[in-house]
């Protein structure tokens, strides 16, 4: 029987209504503050095979569209109406859950005596146990420090709650009541979804619904293929780094070769650095994961805003994720802050795509999401109170046809900032500045600016901590001759006004009266600044983003009072001639790093280390990199490196009689 395309459109809309209704039910009835504030929850309708066929457009965390439920579904031989499965386990769910705070639930929907589909939803719990409150810390070195692991379990069997499982799950976190409140919100949403889908089935029949579900996936796939078909065939290679300073290692490279063949896309991450001993690993199990294809999905949504939001859109995409790399770590690797890694994966995908369709991809944005919190001693109770000061993101990259967005990037859309007035009432701080950074990356389309946040500490017991910072060393890349984006930076100003730069904040204790200033990164520029419309340069000068001097040197624009001197500008631009433009401007620091450790050498090291156990590769890599940095690449070829590994293996089995060997890390 042919697919009814009218019904496809009608039910597509209706299913969207169902998953959005689920989202609002979760938002209304979930308990934890975090859930309500950040919309860190999600809902979907999923096929028997685990594909998302309906996904919300206006509510939720927005990045789970490409997840696959199959592994979790397959954990049970059979289902009954009324079953509710709960899990947070990246292993059994094979990368559907990617860190433990995400409590995920799903429920089978039956009709005419057979399983039709599943309703699925999750919330990010504020605590699931582990070594720190909140469960997430960059310093976790294995999964078990990050909280309780819940393999898929039937919390409800045929509608009956398993009280023992409930007790067990809740006993393993610091906020049992709130977690139970959130789980109730999830089950309420699942019940509603079952009822709503039931209404559709009653109206159109199970067979028709099944055909439409497959039709919707196929429709999204066809639309995605239409987008990919317009991308020139070819192999596009790109790499970018997570900065190593906070990870206490050398920079971690994510390497990609993106191949387009007709309308098929393959993402090969061979050459990506080993898994890390910190919570930045992404547990994909080597399969296509929602966080691997974020950039692809957003590219599709940008190219075709009408594309149905379902997993059909990534059917043309396949992946290679080598075992033991940071994107496919071993079973118990810590993963709490995998979102920082996901942002960099997105940059890498964009960088590769950008070579294929340069006019459709922006330069790199700030590529990070820093969250600044302050904990202060409550004098009465003696306990610490935590205040979230500001989420600090930074500008987007310049875009072909448009400047970058100031202060905000695409990656952190959901989290709102806090009013400064509220901060000053709630937290012991005095905010001196909360502004855009005046410095922006030049380009025909300039980069979006970063944000400057500066506050004075007014308590003797306050301590600032933060996570998520990156792009403090390697600039967000500029494109097609545009400059690299501005770097993030942190300073402390003492009571006498003396200022000193400090490294990225992990934990920072300040004396009362001291001031901390954080500058978030800005996006890269797009296109040659000499091609920028002089009127736009004038506007930037008037608006304070460009000085008259920089207008002349960076943009070749001469100003006379409040106007562009067109003749002088033309002459100056002509005199500059055609500058040699680089495709990607990575900035001085990355160039210097790669001069010392060329990418080909990094490739070689990654390849050689493949024979070592995944858990020790990073450690061995850092030893090799230290040697390279100290005494150059001489002798560090295939054979030389194997020799080093053999020596290390040999030496490590011998008791050391002399001075203890220390590990050197370049920061």
């Amino acid at each position: 029987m042919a697919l009814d395309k009218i019904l496809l459109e009608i039910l597509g809309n209706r299913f969207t209504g169902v998953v959005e209704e689920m989202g609002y039910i979760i938002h209304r009835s979930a308990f934890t503050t975090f859930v309500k504030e950040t919309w860190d929850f999600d809902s979907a309708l999923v096929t028997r095979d685990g594909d998302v066929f309906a996904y919300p457009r206006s509510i939720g965390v927005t990045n789970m569209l490409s997840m696959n439920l199959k592994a979790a579904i397959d954990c049970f031989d059979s289902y009954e109406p009324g079953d509710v499965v709960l899990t947070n386990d990246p292993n059994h769910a094979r990368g559907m859950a990617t860190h433990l705070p995400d409590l995920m639930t799903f429920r089978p929907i039956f009709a005419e005596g057979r399983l039709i589909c599943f309703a699925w939803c999750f919330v990010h719990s504020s605590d699931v146990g582990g070594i720190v409150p909140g469960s997430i810390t960059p310093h976790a070195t294995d999964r078990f420090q990050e909280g309780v692991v819940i393999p898929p379990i039937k919390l409800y069997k045929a509608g009956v709650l398993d009280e023992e499982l409930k007790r067990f799950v809740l006993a393993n976190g610091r906020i049992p009541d709130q977690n139970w409140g959130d789980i109730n919100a999830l089950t309420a949403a699942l019940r509603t979804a079952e009822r709503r889908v039931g209404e559709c089935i009653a109206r159109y029949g199970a067979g028709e619904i099944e055909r439409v579900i497959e039709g919707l996936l196929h429709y999204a796939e066809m639309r995605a293929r239409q987008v990919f078909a317009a991308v020139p065939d070819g192999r596009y290679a790109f790499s970018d780094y997570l900065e190593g300073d906070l990870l206490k290692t050398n920079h971690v490279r994510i390497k990609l070769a993106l191949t387009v063949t007709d309308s098929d896309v393959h993402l090969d991450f061979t050459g990506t650095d080993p898994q890390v001993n910190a919570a930045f690993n992404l547990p994909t199990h080597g399969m296509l994961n929602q966080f691997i294809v974020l950039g692809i999905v957003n590219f599709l949504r940008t190219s075709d805003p009408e594309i149905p939001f379902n997993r059909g859109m990534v059917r043309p995409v396949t992946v290679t994720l080598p075992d033991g790399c940071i994107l496919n770590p071993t079973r118990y690797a810590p993963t709490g802050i995998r979102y920082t890694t996901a942002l960099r994966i997105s940059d890498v995908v964009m960088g590769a795509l950008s070579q294929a369709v340069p006019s459709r991809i922006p330069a790199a944005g700030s590529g990070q999401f820093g969250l600044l919190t302050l904990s202060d001693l409550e004098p009465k109770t003696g306990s610490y109170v935590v205040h979230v000061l500001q989420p600090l993101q930074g500008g987007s990259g310049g875009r072909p046809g448009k400047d970058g967005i100031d202060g905000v990037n695409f990656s952190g859309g959901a989290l709102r900032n806090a009013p400064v007035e509220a901060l000053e009432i709630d937290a012991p701080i005095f905010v001196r500045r909360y502004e855009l950074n005046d410095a922006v990356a030049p380009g025909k389309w300039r980069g979006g600016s970063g944000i400057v946040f500066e506050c004075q500490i007014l308590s003797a017991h306050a301590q600032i901590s933060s996570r998520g910072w990156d792009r403090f060393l390697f600039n967000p890349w500029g494109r097609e001759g545009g400059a690299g984006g501005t770097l993030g930076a942190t300073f402390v100003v003492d009571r006498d006004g003396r200022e000193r730069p400090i490294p990225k904040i992990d934990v920072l204790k300040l004396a009362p009266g001291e001031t901390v200033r954080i500058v978030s990164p800005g996006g890269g520029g797009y296109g040659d600044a000499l091609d920028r419309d002089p009127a736009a340069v004038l506007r930037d000068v008037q608006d304070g983003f460009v000085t008259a001097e920089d207008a002349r040197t960076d943009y070749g624009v001469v100003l006379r009072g409040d106007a562009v001197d067109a003749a002088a500008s033309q002459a100056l631009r002509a005199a500059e001639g055609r500058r040699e433009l680089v495709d990607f401007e990575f900035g001085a620091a990355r160039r210097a790093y790669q001069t010392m450790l060329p990418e080909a050498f990094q490739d070689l090291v990654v390849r050689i280390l493949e024979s070592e156990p995944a858990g020790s590769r990073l450690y061995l890599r850092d030893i090799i990199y230290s040697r390279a940095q100290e005494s150059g690449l001489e002798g560090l070829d295939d054979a030389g490196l194997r020799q080093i590994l053999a020596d290390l293996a040999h030496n490590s089995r011998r008791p050391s009689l002399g001075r203890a060997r220390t590990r050197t890390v370049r920061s």
Partner: protein
Amino acid sequence: MSRLRVGVDIGGTFTDFAILDEETGRIRALKYPSNRTRPASSVLGGLQAALVAQGATAEEIIYFSHGTTLAVNTILEYNGARTALLVTQGFRDILYIGRHRLPDVFNFFTAMPAPLVRRAHVVEIAERTLADGSVALPVDRAAIAAAVESLRAFGVEAVAVGFLHSYRNGANEREAARLLAELAPDLYVSLSSEIWPQMREYERTLIGVMNAYVGRRMETYFGDLQTSLADSLGVRATLLSTKSNGGVMTASEAARRPTETLMSGPAAGAIGAAFVAKAAGFSKIVTLDMGGTSTDVSIIEDEPRYSTENHVGNFPVIMPAVDVTSIGAGGGSVAWIDDFGVLKVGPRSAGARPGPACYGHGGTEATLTDAFVCLGIVQPGELADGRVTIDKSLADAAVGALAEGLGRQPEAVAEDILRIATSHIYSALVPLLARKGVDYADYVLLPFGGAGPMHGLLAARDIGFRKVLVPANPGVLCATGALVADVRRDLVRTLHIQIRDESRDEVVNASRAAFEALEREGGAWLEAQNLAYTRHRFHRIIEMRYHGQSFEISVPVAPGDLDGDDSRLAAAFRKEYAVIYGQADRGFPIEVRDVRSVAIGETPKPALETLSAAASDFDLSAATVERDIFHDGRGQTARFIPRAAIGLGQNIAGPAVITQYDTTTFVPSGYTARVDRFGNLIAEADDGAR
């Protein structure tokens, strides 16, 4: 001499009039073409026409209230005054950082809403008030003098002042205003602390900016209108303006506080709907206002719901307003076929011009309205005294082109357009109701606007509303709202204190004192409106939240909640929280953010005309025409009945089409309609349907 109340609503295409004769309780509707460049002329022209039709004179008008979209359009179209902004040093980008959110996180080419003030026109002033309201650094004359120099160089006509913590102590803003008045008396100045003194520097400053941006223009408009109504027509009633909060204020007040009119149009519609519903004996209502370009929804539980999270374009507006949400396009939604042969409806709209193809204004694309025409449900001919003419051949051609592309019958495609449009309403409305905590099984759908009655019952049938109320004058419900609204002003004071110990009374005492101060201010304001017919009362609301959350819930204060200790207040909060979110936490600390007072000058409500009970007065069958329509997949015969011919006690089973001056109501099969004694149509799902 009769006593007339006049309500006016200026829309993009039509200026609507609802004129109520207090003696008979009869409401007359009139639609008059809007003059976009000179809106006051459509008010005058329409009023003249209405008076002629009524056989009345301007002296008989005892109440004149009108709503204008001038302020909101000035902002949406960015054609207000060249405006500057003075801010606290260090916070230059208050308008650009905003709340740090992108309009569309999935689109690499999304644009932030262009600000109303350029960065170049923001002047930082070395001044500072601290969180406790003390002035750490007063405003310096030299700084303002230097700022004035800059403002001169920018060539601005208006300036807004938004300083940190001015909600608590506006002294520095007032000092700046005093100096500006002295040094640059020609500038229009708005202070954030005067317009809406609530904590939240971005939203408060933005309100000040909007006020400055539209201020002069609104001042001129209201001045002109007042003069011409009095001079050329002899209207003696005080000119009133509708407000976003569903109330009214005098036009002279509206000229000072134009931001309070930003969402007045949709608000008046909800007020009109609430009035009609209450008279008809319904308390729980979901309204569906479908016009040519938008579809708006509001929820009424005796009174409309209010919200402090409103938007004008992409700008947030935190002043309380009737909670109206736009859920998509309306009758002008364009139907089209995508590259994969899938029929789509919207999101693009044919707008006011060219509008649907059948209007004959040059549109060739099929719209939702064209589909109704093609199905035979909306008849060709003239609507609203010939101000719209419908040409069926144009509708057929437009739908026919799609049908050819799909290889199907035009009628079938026309019905598919309806079904798809309905599925869009479903996918927006059902989640919206979940968000608002509405179990719509208990609610009555009230469609209005030009296209609402045409599509409303189809939507009801699909979504599952068993009962539908179509008001007697669905095309002019906003104007009806304008003539029954109360005088109303919201006032706010931010307290921002935490309930630390529920057995103490710190918070209730502070709240009570704040309410008393606000009620003094509100009482004085009501007096100053100088409207003898109003009865004054106050409504108390406290905005509360759990510590750490960034949104508040509005807790109505019942008598007694502020007597005794803080535990009463905490209990009231937890009760309200549980109503909204299903559960509440006993142990979690609670904060009072703002206290809000609503000063209400209640206007006497008119009694509506009722139909005579004698159904036999009407000869329904003589007025009824049977025509062929295409409905539910087949050709059927439907009865076409003029609205006025339906008497009490007569049941009209679907499919039927009920026609009147400005709109067409379609009763699909599965529903049966009757009229109530006020002339409203009440349609109910037949048993067993759905």
